[in-house]
Structure formats: structure tokens, C-alpha cells
């Protein structure tokens, strides 16, 4: 097959530098803390509900620190070899292939393990030696110990909102990190973010933020999580493309946060009351 014309580019995570400044509104002193942690070679843990800007913050910091960003979205079948690397078979021979974590350690990038609790328990142990003052990655299958360069940085994210015993972070893991807590931005700030990202006017952004607060009031009485800033931006974008606000809130927000028909109807009533 001739792939010369297809616009796909090969995955070269160590070259993934972020060139343009990502839009990021700081909610506190998280930028200063991250920088200080980076300078002192401390790993960082980002805590907070989904869609409140953790990943965007990482992109912003990668841009600011001018390091490549390697993001791994963890899932429940993610094993240690997926991170470190494995032997593959090529033309009758076995060839070692580095995993994303190993690549980041080698080139001194920022490795961001998103939603780390989703990964298998044994996966987490692999990052332990990297996350303390040893800063080394043992590669059992190669019989090597890979030491991280000074530029390397490990960051993980975690959503404490799950409140499931099965998906909690072990003390031995969490006590290795500098923790940064993220939450939904304050109303003013959130309005600015929505207006800026979705290109809607301030009045509409205000209403969207108010709507988000209504859904966040429902957390715990039927909803696991209220509408995130990301969902508001989605709704805002639909509205900017002249979708009716109530319909936009239903498709971009309500359907995204729940499947329960009563809850969907209730959220629909809330947005219909507001717009």
C-alpha cells in the first residue's frame, strides 16, 4: 500500500513539543508550584474532577518548560509492559521496543499518566522508583536500570470523586508526589474560559456557568459528577454554531453526564427554565 500521500505522521512522542501557547487560566498558584517541583525533580500529582483543566494545564506547562509531553491515558488493561516496553517479533527475531514511559525517561520529557487509578495495580509499582529520589526505571526484561535525566518529569492525575474502594490510590504511591488540587474554576473565571474557548458572548457564558452550577448541585443526589468546564465549552460551541441553547445543553451536557431518563428530564427542565 502506498502511504506516501496520506497525511498521517508517525508517532514520535519525544518530538511532541508544544509550539503554540495553549490557552490556560490559572486558578491559583499551580504554575509556580509545578515549576518549583520541576526544578527540584519532584513528581507531581494532579487531583480533581474530570474536565476541569488538568490535561490543559499539563500542555501549558510543557509549553512553558519547553519539554516534550508524552501523555498516556490509563485504562484497566494497561500493564507495566505497556509503559516500559516489550519484545516484539520482527522477521523471525525478537526486537525490544520502548514503551512511552521509557521514551520519556530517555529523552527527558514530561510523562503524564492520565487517570492513573484506572490502570492495573501492578502498573503503579513500576513508577515508584521513578517517583522518589532514585529517579530510575528498572527494566526487568532487559536487565537494565535506566536513570532519568534532569529534564525528566513524571506527572499523574487522579479523580478522587470516584469514591470507590477499588479505584483508590495507594498511600505508597500518593506519598511520593507533590499534589496539586484542581476544582471547577470560580464563576467569574469559568465564564471567561467558556466565553474565550467557545466564542460566545458573556451573557450566554454566564448562563452556561449558572446551568453548570445547577447540575453540580445534583451531585450526590443522582449524578456522580456535575457538568465540567469542558462540557460547558462544548455546549457553548454548539450554541455559537446557532444550535438552540436548550438543545445544546441537552446534547452536550445532560446526555454526557447521565443515562437515567428521570435525571435527563430534570436537567432538560433546568435548562429550559434558564434560557
Amino acid at each position, binding site marked *: 500500500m502506498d502511504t506516501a500521500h496520506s497525511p498521517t505522521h508517525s508517532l514520535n512522542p519525544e518530538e511532541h513539543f508544544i509550539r503554540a501557547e495553549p490557552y490556560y487560566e490559572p486558578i491559583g498558584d499551580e504554575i509556580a508550584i509545578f515549576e518549583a517541583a520541576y526544578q527540584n525533580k519532584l513528581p507531581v500529582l494532579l487531583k480533581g474532577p474530570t474536565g476541569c483543566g488538568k490535561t490543559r494545564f499539563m500542555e501549558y506547562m510543557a509549553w512553558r518548560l519547553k519539554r516534550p509531553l508524552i501523555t498516556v491515558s490509563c485504562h484497566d488493561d494497561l500493564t507495566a*509492559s505497556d509503559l516500559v516496553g*516489550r519484545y516484539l517479533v520482527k522477521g523471525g527475531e525478537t526486537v525490544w521496543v520502548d514503551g512511552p514511559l521509557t521514551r520519556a525517561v530517555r529523552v527527558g520529557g514530561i510523562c503524564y499518566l492520565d487517570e492513573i487509578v484506572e490502570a492495573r495495580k501492578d502498573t503503579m509499582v513500576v513508577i515508584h522508583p521513578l517517583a522518589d529520589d532514585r529517579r530510575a526505571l528498572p527494566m526487568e526484561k532487559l536487565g537494565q536500570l535506566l536513570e532519568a535525566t534532569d529534564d525528566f518529569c513524571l506527572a499523574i492525575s487522579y479523580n478522587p470523586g470516584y469514591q470507590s474502594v477499588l479505584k483508590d490510590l495507594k498511600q505508597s504511591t500518593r506519598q511520593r508526589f507533590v499534589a496539586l488540587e484542581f476544582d471547577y474554576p470560580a464563576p467569574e473565571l469559568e465564564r471567561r474560559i467558556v466565553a474565550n474557548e467557545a466564542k460566545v458572548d458573556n451573557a450566554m457564558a454566564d448562563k452556561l456557568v*449558572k446551568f453548570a452550577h445547577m447540575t453540580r*448541585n445534583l451531585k450526590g443526589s443522582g449524578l456522580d459528577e456535575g457538568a465540567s468546564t469542558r462540557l460547558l465549552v462544548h455546549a457553548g460551541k454548539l450554541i455559537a454554531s446557532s444550535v438552540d441553547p436548550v438543545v445544546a445543553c441537552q446534547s452536550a451536557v445532560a446526555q454526557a453526564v447521565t443515562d437515567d431518563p*428521570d435525571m435527563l428530564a*430534570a436537567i432538560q*427542565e433546568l435548562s429550559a427554565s434558564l*434560557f
Partner: protein
Amino acid sequence: MASLTQAEIEALLDAWLEVEFTFHNVSPVAQSLCELDRGGQDFVLDWIKRIATTHITLAFNFAKRAPDLIQRFDKRVIEAWAVHLCDTYDRAGMYAALDIASSVGNFMQQRHDHAAGALFEDSAPVLGNFVHGLSGRRLKLEEGEAAWTDGEKIVLPAIVAAFESRIDNFKLTKAMTAFLWAQTRFGSLRVDIASVCAEYPDPARALTQFHGLETLRLTARLARELPGLHRDMTRLGADLGDRLDQSWSKLAQQLDEHAEIEDSLALLGRAYALPDFVPYSYQGTLNPEAVAAARAARLEKEKARLRVKLAEMMEEQQRRKPESAPGANEQPRFEAKSDETDGRLDLELTLNDLPIAPPDDVKQLMTSVFLDFGEIPPEYLVPAGDGEYDPSLYQDQPADPDAVWQGAYHEEGALLYPEWDMGRQHYRKNWCVMREKEVKPVHDDFPRQTLDKHAGLIKQLRKSFEAMRDENRLLKRQVQGDEVDIDALVEALADSRDGSEMSDRLFMHMHRAERNIAVAFMVDMSGSTKGWINEAEREALLLLCEALERLGDRYAIYGFSGITRKRCELFRVKTFDEPYTDEVKARISGIAPQEYTRMGFAIRHLSKLLNDVEARTKVLITLSDGRPDDYFDAYRGPYGIEDTRMALLEARRSGIHPFCITIDKDARDYLPHMYGAARYVILDDVAQLPAKVADVYRKLTH
């Protein structure tokens, strides 16, 4: 199908309404019924028969009105009305139910034929969430006769049928809900309405005018806060003839979107001189006594709670940052600021000018206090001293289940469960008053004796249970995996040299399997288990625990018994989170026969507990010695069987696997029906029980 004749209908009514004894005059009913088509006749007759199983007089009263109603309303509405009659009878007795039967006109202020009403039971799940989404105190929804609120709950009528279409009727219900919410949220209930009105010669009239002023003020406020809703309110109101009398327009102008409750109070004198305010369709009624009672009960409690919470937060703060804590001579100073811009209600808490983020429960408390005063009074922000408050003031005491029986009967601290009434073909709401109780542990020799007696069996059980533990397995020859499968690779290379196709299954993958099972055991503790059966049950539970510990499944054990619906009891032997300790063993020893076998509530409660546990497979195993039964109660016989069956069906529907083990030898006639949704096994010999229970469990979850 041809319509029934008057004589045929009379014969049916004679039988159902026991005319021989009750002397109800059923001829007029039969006469009006015979004018309906067969569908209408069947519908009404069916409901007469169903209500008659609850109470004959109630059924007769329904029968007198139904033929007229069916001409005017949707069948759904009449059905809801019939259920509402029965519910009221269950809850408040005959007089209250007859009252509703005779006031049928009020509740159905109908304007359209065959109106499709909005039923409370349909609207409540949606509007309950709706009202939680709006800011402020969490209000509960309840069904009642009229629309009103006491600041903690919103009462809505059972049926709203002012419009022809169901959507409009629902919208009206929503408008009522939002309006009643606004009374709590925007301060209407902050004042002592009764004493304000008492200053006027005619307090009732003053109340009407006050309600009118508040209706205007809150409507204006809602126009700003919830413009979409306000559009609906205006449209529905216009259709229903909400008109503002000319004389009121001046006052209405002053009550704009920024007006507060003080403005309404200031205008009350002028309003009193005006003609009576004609109520708006969505305003409901004001109930100053209920508001004052709820508020009085709330204030002290919340003050205590808030102050205790603040003390806890202060302690926490000091633990975390000892250096920033106020010195011994500096008083800790909490302050709260409210921000109500854009209709949000943000309360900011500071400790010695440093902002602190209160946890959710404290936020809720502060919100609630704010709604009562329009601010957080300074005395509420003084952290409580040590032992300043009796914990009973600020904690929801789990009421001692036995204490409630001393003195006047009340249902405090109990959970209410519905029960299926086969005659009515409908649930009896909040019918069973259920309490969880502790089994009194008995520290005796029973566990040790049992373990000795069944030592051989235990060994065997442990072995077979251990075999069920899902071990990690290395899966070979996989398409993907962590390591290269050298055997497969060598074979594949040989194949390719041979010229045959090379397999792509060259990897090994470690399969890590986890058992993810939660099981609840529901043990019969009725009086009839006395003796052999009780002993066998206890032995069976002990053996099971021994075996389950090997398996690592989460399990809970509860005993059930009760006497009448007012006293349904579940005895905790072991909860899901509790480890298997000597205490649990002692409680198993302590399982003793109690009263009767009412099963429905126990199945429903344990289903609820199971559904709260996070597990892939959920199993409910009931151990009983016979058919459902209760003291001088309809529960004996088919009623109990049908309710148990329904409870099992509900469990099944919610994703639980019910399984029943029975020792009743005569059970074969009703069990297949009752356990329709569950699988079951009948044991002929009690002595088999210990071995069998573990065996059943093994087969069930393997």
C-alpha cells in the same frame, strides 16, 4: 363485546360490595354504568373490585362517582385517583379517604373533556431532581391535597389536570414547584407570617393579601432568575385566567425583580385596603403554621450543628498549620460573606480573614441558615466549646429501635417499604415500618462445638471453595501480550521455513481474574424455626462463613422477623464491611426465634443494601422454613405469597440473583409460583441444611 346489562352489573356489585350485609344501594351505580361502553364498564368494575379488597365503603363511594368521571377524564387520571384514595385510606384512615372521594370536584378543576392529568408519581422523580438542581436548601417532594411548602418539603397535589394535554399539566406542576421553591429561596418564609397577619383586624384576609404580594414579587424574581420558566408560567397563567386586578397594578410595579421580602411587608398595609387578591394558578397555598413549626425545629439544631462543625474545622486547621493558628489569647474569628450575584448563592467562609473551603455538609448547613435569616448571624459563627452541646442536638441519633415502642407510637428512625396488594393490584405505599436491629451476641460454646461436629465437612468445603478461587492464569499463544511465547515462536518459524502460513499468536498474556461477588443471606428468624431448624440454620451459617472466608467474597447476614406491618425487623448479624470475628460468631449463636414470617420488606431492604455494594455479581439467598405469614393479618395466604413474589421480581429486575432455600415439606404447591423469579431448592431434611447451603452457594457463583 356487548355492554353488560344493568342486572349483570348489579349482580357483580352485590357480590363485591357484600350488599347482603352492607345494604349499599347499588342500583343507581349499575344504572349509570350500563350506559358506558364495554371498555369503560370493565375499567370501572375492575377498580371497584380492587378497591373493595381494601374497603367496601370506599369502593362504593368510588363506584358512585366513577361513571361520571370516566366521561370527563383520561383513564390514567381515574386510575391515579383510585390509587390515591387507597393510599389515603392506608395512611390516614377512612374519614380522610371519604373526604377525598367527596371532594373530587376540587382536585379535578377540569376544563376539558378526557383531560390527561400530570400525576404526582410521574412528575415527582423529574421535579425532585429539578428542585435539587436549583440552589438553596434541599427540598423534598411529597404528595398531598394542595400545593404548599414548609421550607423543607414541597407538597404537590396527586393530580394536576387543569389542561387538556399532559405536557401543559406537567408544566403547571413544574411552575408550582419552582414557585414554592422560590418562597424558600427568596425569603418569603423568613418572617413569622402568622404574627404579621395577626396585626390586622382580619388575619385571614391579611394572609390572602400577603400571599398576593409575594406572588407578584416572586414572579418578578423568577423572570430574572429563570426566564424560560417565567415564559411558561405567564402563558399557562394567561390560559387559566390569571389576571391582575387594576387596583393592584401600582403595587405590582414596586415589586420588581430586585424587591425583597421587606418590600412586600412594607406594602401589606396598602394591599390590605385593596380588593382581595385573586390567586394565580401556580401560587398554591400558604401554610404559616407548618412553616413556623419546621423553622422552630430547625433553628436550634442547625445552630448547634454549625457551631460544632466550625469547632471541628478549626481543630483541623490547627493540626495542619500550627504556626498560623490563633494564639491562646486571640479569639478565632469566623466570618461569612454571601454573594448572590447572578442568582447563585455563594457563601464564603473566612477564619481570621483567611478564606477556608468548608466541606459540602457545612456548605449545606450555611445555606440553610442563610435562607432562614438572609445572613449568617454572628452567634452562629462561634465555634462550639467542648461539651457545650448534647450530641443528640446535632447528630441524627439512630433511634433505639426498642425505645420507640415505649410511649406513643411513632415511625421515627424507621424505613418505610411498600407492599404489593394482590387484591388492589397495586402497591400499598410506605406500608411496612422497618427497623434494623442488632442481634444480641451470645458468647457460648456453640461455634466451637459446631466446628468440631462438622470438622470433616468444613475441611471438604474449604477445599472445594478454594478451588473456586480464580487464580491468575498464563494464557499462551495470544495475539497480544506482555512477553513473547518462545514455544509458539519456534513453531511459527518452523512453519514459515516449511512454506506454510505463520501464526500470529506469538505472545503470552497474564490473565488476572478477580471474583467480584457480593452476597446477602436472609435468614428466617420466625417463631416457627424454634428448635431443630434454628439450630440447623445457625450451623449452616457458621460453616458458610468458614468457607466464604476462603473465597474472599463480600457477604452479609441478616435475620428477619416481625409482627404486623408496623413492626418489621431485620436483625444484623454481619454487614458487608464487617470482618468475620468472634463477635460475629457470637451473634450467629444469638440468632433466636422471634415472631412471624413477613418476607417482602426483608427482600426489599436487602436488595437495597446489595445494590449499594459495588460488585459485578449480586446474590440474595433466603433461608426460610415456610410460607410467608403474619399475626392476624392478611399476610397469611395468597397475599403474602404474592407480595414475596413481587419483591423477588423487583430484586431480579434490579440485577440481583435471588435464590431461596426452604425447609417446608408442603412447599411444593406454592413455591414454583412464589419463587417464580428466583431459583430455589427444597430440603426435606433439616440435617442437610449445613452441607446444602454451602453447596448451593458454590454452584450458584461458580
